[in-house]
C-alpha cells in the first residue's frame, strides 16, 4: 500500500483477469438493479443477460498470459452466452479491443487508449450508433476520452483509469435526459427520457471494475 514503486507498471494479464472477475462480481451484485433499469425502457433482462454472460466469462477464464487471447476468449463467451443486443455489442467490444494485443503479456497506458478506441469503433459500427443516442456508448466514449487525456498528461494507468471511470459515471448519468435512438428504448420515443440507460450503466460498472483491478494489482 505504501510501496508505490510499481505504480507505473504495465497492466498485466493477471490484472485483466482480475478486471473480469471484478466485473462479474459487480454485475452479479447489480443484476436486479440493471434489470430494473431495463424495465421502464426495455424488456427487463439486461441484468440477467450481463450476469449470465460474465459468470460464463469467469468460468472459462483462460490463464494464458496473452492479453489478446484473454480478451478474445471473453468476446466469444459473451457472444454465445449473453444474447440480446448487448451480447453481440459487448462481444464486439472485447473482440476489437483485444485484436492489437495478440501475444502481448501486458498493456502500457497508451495501449489502454487503443483498446478502448478500437472496442468503441466496433460497437459503433455493429450497432450503427453514435454518442447521444442513449446507449452503452454514452458511458464508453467519455471514458475513452478522459483516459486518452490523462495518458497524454503522463498520468499513471491507475490514475488515468480512475479518470476514465469517473467520466463513464458522468456519461452514464448523462443518459438520463436523453431520448433513446437505438435499441428497444427507442420504441418509447419521448417516454424514454428521464431513465438511465441500462447498457451505459453496465459499461460504467465494467470500466470502474477495470480501474479498481489495475489499482489493486499495482499496489
Amino acid at each position, binding site marked *: 500500500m505504501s510501496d508505490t514503486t510499481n505504480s507505473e507498471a504495465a497492466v498485466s494479464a493477471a490484472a485483466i483477469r482480475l478486471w473480469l472477475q471484478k466485473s462479474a462480481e459487480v454485475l452479479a451484485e447489480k443484476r436486479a438493479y440493471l434489470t430494473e433499469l431495463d424495465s421502464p425502457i426495455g424488456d427487463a433482462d439486461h441484468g440477467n443477460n450481463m450476469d449470465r454472460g460474465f459468470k460464463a466469462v469467469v468460468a472459462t477464464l483462460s490463464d494464458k498470459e496473452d492479453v489478446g487471447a484473454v480478451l478474445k476468449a471473453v468476446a466469444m463467451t459473451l457472444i454465445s452466452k449473453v*444474447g440480446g443486443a448487448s451480447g453481440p455489442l459487448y462481444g464486439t467490444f472485447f473482440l476489437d479491443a483485444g485484436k492489437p494485443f495478440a501475444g502481448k503479456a501486458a498493456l502500457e497506458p497508451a495501449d489502454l487508449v487503443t483498446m478502448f478506441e478500437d472496442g468503441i469503433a466496433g460497437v459503433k459500427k455493429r450497432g450503427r450508433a453514435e454518442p447521444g443516442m442513449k446507449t452503452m456508448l454514452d458511458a464508453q466514449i467519455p471514458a475513452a476520452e478522459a483516459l486518452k487525456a490523462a495518458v497524454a498528461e503522463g498520468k499513471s494507468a491507475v490514475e488515468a483509469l480512475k479518470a476514465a471511470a469517473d467520466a463513464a459515471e458522468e456519461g452514464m448519468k448523462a443518459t438520463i435526459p436523453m431520448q433513446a435512438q437505438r*435499441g428497444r428504448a*427507442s420504441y418509447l420515443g419521448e*417516454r424514454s427520457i428521464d431513465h438511465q440507460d441500462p447498457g451505459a450503466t453496465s459499461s460504467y460498472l465494467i470500466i470502474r471494475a477495470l480501474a479498481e483491478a489495475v489499482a489493486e494489482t499495482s499496489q
Partner: protein
Amino acid sequence: MKKLINNAEDVTLEQLKGFGLAHPEIEVHFDPNYVAVAGGVQNRVAVVSGGGAGHEPLHGGYVGMGMLDAACPGQTFTSPTPDQMYEAGKAVNGGKGILQIIKNYTGDVLNFRMAADLLRDEGIDVRNVVIDDDVALKDSLYTAGRRGLGTTVIAEKVCGAASQEGYDLDRLEALCKKVNIHGKSMGMALTPCTTPQNGTPSFELAEDEMEIGIGIHGEPGTERMPIKSADEITEILATRILEDGAYTRELTEWDSEKGDWVDVEVKDITFQSGDEVIAIVNSMGATPISELYTVYAKLAEVAEKHGVKIVRKLIGHYITSLEMAGVSITLVKADEEILRLYDAPVNTPALRWGV
C-alpha cells in the same frame, strides 16, 4: 409470480425438453439450443427463424413440413446467440442455402447477422430478411425501426411453402421481402407480464389503464391511455394499420454479388380499396379466444369500410408475450402467390392443414 415451472433459471431448457418429447418428429438440440425438422432438408432452401422465448407457439411451434426447418429460442425475451443459428443452419442446410427470417429487434438482428457471417465462411449461402411490420412506430431514423410482429407468422408459413414448391434462394428472399412490405401489425396490452427470471411484472398499469403500441417483450407501448371498449380499441389498431402510409426505411441486406452487407431502401405498400388480406387476431396470452371474436367483428367492419376484404384469418394464440392480456392485429395484403402458398399444406405443432 404464479407459473408452472420448476426452476426459473432453467425454464427455457425444461420447456424445450418437453417440446422434444411431445413432438418426436422435431429434433431438439441442446447447447447450443435449437429445434429442427428431423433428418434435415434435402435439395431445397432451408427456412430458419428464432428469437427470445416467451412468444410461443412462435417459433418452435411453426417447425415442420411446409413452414420452418429450424428455430432458435433464446432465453425468455432475449434474442438467441449466433452459435445457435450457426449450428441450426449447418444441421438443416440442404445444399440450396438458408433463408433467415428475423424479427426486427436490435438483438435478433445483430445475432442473426453474426451467424450468417459464420455460415457464409463455411460456404453456405445465407440471406437475412428482417420483418418490421409494427405500425405503432412511425419513424426509423431516430429509432431502431419498426419491430417485427405478426407478419412473421405469415412470412414463415408462406416461405416454408415456397421452399417446398422449389423456390430457389433468390426467389425465396424476394418473396419474404414482399410479405414483409405487405404486412402491418399493431398490438395493445391490458396487463403486463412477468418473466420467470424476474418474478415481477415488467411494468405497472392501473386498473383503468392500457398500453397501446406494444411489442412482444412485455415492454410498455408507445402510449398509455384510459382503458376503452373492445370496439374502440379495435378501431384504433385497425385504423392505424389500414391507413398507415408507405413506410420507408433503410434495411441492411446481404448483397451476394458484392459479397457484403449493403443498406437498401425499402418501402411498404399501403392498403387500397379492393385489397384482399390475411388477418391475424392474436391473443397476447391471457386474453381468451372468446374476446378475440369481439375484436374480429369490429376489425371486419373497419376493414370493409376501407374496402379491404379479409379472405383468410387466424384467431387465437400465434405470437404471444407470456401471460400478458391484450391483443395484436396483423393484416397482410395477399396476392395470388401469397394466397396459394398460405393455403398449401402445413404440419407443425401450432399450424396444421392439408395433411
